[in-house]
């Protein structure tokens, strides 16, 4: 009878304790910094303490502004997750170097187990079916204080990984044991990053699975992205390293992984240098995927076969990004910007690839020794800033597919093909659309799906990654992803009930 109030009160109590605990931990860390207590490192400790204080303020602000929709479904799971976050931060503050394995358990380990447990507690007990209740009022998912905090944290993590990796050494050391086991060498910040990325995809993959488990398309798609990330983008590259082979990713191809077909040391040079025959296979694999498999698969299935079934960026967006998909910019202006930027990006990659090859063929006649610097700068601008910092760090601000919409050259080329030469379309079901807007609101690409659905028109858009969420959230079963004959898939807007009038008046 009074379950609602109980939950609200319990949540409020938990949040109060969270604020107290966080503040106390911050105070202790500040003390360790002031008295330089081993194994804490003063600078890292101060940084972590500041972060914790900011978190305490954020939680308090959210609590006072009525953080009701955020229910904690299992107290122990919540506490374990909280411990994991705290443990991770404390590991960074220096303790990770001193006690790497215990700090892995208290940090990333507790975080993984706790958040998985929370997800199971939240979703296993609720009936199957779309449940987006409260998504638009939850401050973490709607640029509230907690959302800002999260966005700053995620962006900050990327900034550290790319520019100040030594600041994360405490955390990197906690992953040494796994790196030794998998790769036969100590961890570096890229291994730690890769592990964190993979864990995020796996854990939130479980969440995505449960949220959309009533739709088999979503179950299979989630399995696919998690499998590709864990096996092809994490385990296999590690094993290659263990056997002294190039750290090659079989799930990324030119032009997304542009260097795989670039000449020279910044391109495929290192792959061939480390390993002759296997290296040749890798280059061959990449080239065939880029120029043969990709067009064929995109013709039959649309760009979704890659963007929302295989790609690691897509994997992150579809799993950890799922709570933020509704934040995608969706104005006409954002769409126009998108078209310029993404096609510009593709153009840059194609021109850069051509120039580098001409330069290589002419033995440096065009760029001379600059070619290495050029490739490096390019990789930094696109790979680091665009794909990482903004692409993932900004999830809580701009939604999940910022990189895919505004930067990814692979998405651009697949999109062009999807728009003009593919069998894929989203079909609308006659006149059944009720214009409710769930499809548009939850489209991570910011497509106004409703505009098509309410006039009964097929959706054929370059940017659609075919995640299928529009179809899953539609309360009237109006949308269906289909691969049909390429002829006539654009169609005219069809509202079958209006046929009689159409014959008299002509449509449009």
């Amino acid at each position, binding site marked *: *009878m*009074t*379950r*609602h*109030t109980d*939950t609200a009160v319990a949540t409020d109590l938990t949040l109060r304790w969270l604020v107290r605990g966080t503040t106390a931990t911050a105070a202790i860390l500040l003390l360790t910094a002031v008295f330089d207590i081993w194994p804490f490192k003063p600078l890292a400790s101060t940084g972590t303490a500041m972060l914790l204080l900011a978190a305490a303020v954020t939680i308090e602000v959210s609590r006072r502004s009525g953080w009701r*929709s955020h229910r904690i479904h299992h107290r122990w799971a919540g506490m374990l997750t909280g411990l994991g976050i705290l443990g991770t931060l404390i590991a960074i503050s220096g303790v990770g170097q001193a006690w790497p394995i215990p700090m892995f358990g208290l940090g990333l380990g507790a975080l993984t187990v706790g958040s998985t447990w929370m997800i199971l507690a939240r979703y296993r007990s609720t*009936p*199957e*079916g*779309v449940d*987006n*209740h*409260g*998504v*638009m*009022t*939850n401050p973490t998912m709607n640029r509230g204080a907690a959302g800002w905090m999260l966005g700053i944290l995620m962006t900050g993590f990327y900034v550290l990984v790319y520019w100040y990796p030594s600041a994360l050494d405490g955390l990197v050391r906690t992953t040494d044991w796994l790196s030794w086991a998998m790769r036969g060498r100590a961890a570096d910040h890229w291994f730690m990053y890769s592990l964190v990325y993979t864990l995020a995809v796996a854990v939130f993959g479980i969440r995505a699975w449960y949220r959309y488990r*009533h*739709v*088999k*398309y979503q179950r*299979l798609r989630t399995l696919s992205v998690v499998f590709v990330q864990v096996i092809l983008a994490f385990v296999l590259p590690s094993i290659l390293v263990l056997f002294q082979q190039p750290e090659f990713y079989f799930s990324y191809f030119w032009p997304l992984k542009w260097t795989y077909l670039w000449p020279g040391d910044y391109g495929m040079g290192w792959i061939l240098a480390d390993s002759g025959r296997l290296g040749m296979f890798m280059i061959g694999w990449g080239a065939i995927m880029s120029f043969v498999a990709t067009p064929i698969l995109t013709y039959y299935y649309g760009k979704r076969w890659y963007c929302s079934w295989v790609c690691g960026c897509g994997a992150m967006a579809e799993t950890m990004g799922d709570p933020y998909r509704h934040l995608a910019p969706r*104005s*006409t202006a954002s769409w126009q910007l998108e078209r310029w930027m993404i096609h510009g990006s593709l153009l840059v990659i194609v021109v850069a690839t051509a120039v580098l090859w001409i330069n290589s063929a002419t033995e440096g006649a065009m760029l001379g020794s600059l070619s290495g610097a050029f490739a490096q700068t390019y990789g930094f601008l696109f790979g680091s800033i665009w794909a990482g910092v903004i692409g993932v760090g900004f999830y809580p601000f701009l939604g999940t597919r910022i990189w895919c919409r505004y930067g990814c050259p692979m998405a651009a080329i697949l999109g062009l093909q999807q728009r003009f030469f593919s069998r894929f379309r989203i*079909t609308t*079901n*006659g*006149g*059944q659309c*009720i*214009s*409710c*807007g*769930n499809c*548009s*609101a939850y489209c991570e690409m910011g497509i106004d799906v*409703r*505009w098509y659905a*309410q006039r009964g028109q097929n959706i054929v858009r370059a940017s659609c990654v075919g995640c*299928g969420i529009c*179809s*899953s959230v539609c*309360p*009237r*079963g109006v949308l*269906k*992803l*289909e691969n049909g004959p390429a002829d006539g898939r654009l169609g005219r807007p*069809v509202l*079958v*009930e*209006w*046929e*009689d*009038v159409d014959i*008299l*008046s002509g449509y*449009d």
Partner: protein
Amino acid sequence: MHVVIIGNGIAGITAARFVRKNGDARLTIVSSETEYHVARTALMYAYMGDLRESDLKPYEDDFWTKNRMELVLDHATDLDTAARSVQLASGRRLTYDRLVLATGSRPNRFGWQGEYLDGVQGLYAWSDLKTMQRVTEGITDAVVVGGGLIGIELVEMLRSRSIDVHFLVRETAYMDHLFSRDESELIHRQIDRHGVHLHLGCEVDRFEDDGNGRVAAVTTRDGRSFPAAFAGIGVGVHPRTELAEAAGIETNKGILVDRSFRTSAPDVFAAGDCAEFRRPLVDGRTIEQLWYSARRQGRILGLILSGKDLSYDTPVFYNSAKFFDLEYQTYGSVPATDDAGLETRAWQDGTRLVRVARRADTGALAGVTGFGIRLRHDVAATWIRAARRATFSGQDVRELAFDPEFTSLPHNDIARELSAWT
């Protein structure tokens, strides 16, 4: 030509869109409900936090200026059909060449004691959403009256906030005038699964006052009483005719119109929920109160106002709903029980159900309904219109199904069950 439309619901807006598509008339749309057209169908999603309020606008704000439609946030208080003018509450007076009354409807109440207490309301207009958000803040108990589509939506809305709900339904099975027993049971199970207390065969007697003019409980005719800080009413709607009536336009239950939406006053038209046809439509109804029918009426009216010589006829009927997690679609006529004219057959597997109806005399397909299965609108409508024989192959069922890829459906079994007429 100046076309003035009273009401920015789906009928009025669709009429305006088709007037603009076909010509250059000046268009003015008056509404006191919202500044911009919103999808009434999505009010529940705004309440549940599935959607932002801004998501309810099907068109971007610049759509209206781009299409040269003047939106007036005002209330039409008086209509002078002789002077061809509409008086607005702000004092502004609009003169028209053609006037469209698309004033919609309002929720029914049946004279129960306490039915206008604070916290007793239906769900139709934007203001209902706002009131409901305010009065249900922090409450723990509610009652919903009326076993229709709005009733179950109200229940779902309240449950999304973990409010304890008693759902009072007069009939002995949910929507038994439309659904067969097995179909109603599917919905009963949904209601149960979501922790709702369903009371069938239960009629309201009165709404109890908490002493401050706010509802405190709902008492039923059989003497039971349920605590309720909110009471949702979903017992149908009736046309809003007051503006037309005051202007001396002929009304009955609704504003009376012919098949071209003409009222008794010259150049005054009415469409959507508020309109009542003088001559019944094919199935005997004179008022259509579905969102879909309002959209269709609006379109035909828009074409008529653009000078097309058309008259309104119902297409192959269709409707849809969602009962918590259970999707429902129906096409044509599928009666709740076999009668002299129509007989039905069903296939069911757990929560999935398909039912077809055929004409007893000719064996022609009359309608098809799906629960938990999506059906292709154009296939169903084409088959019904063509009076196709109601026997199916597995391939037919494959063509009819609209479920997402990888959904496993036993197409051949379904075909066999649906074709096994005795």
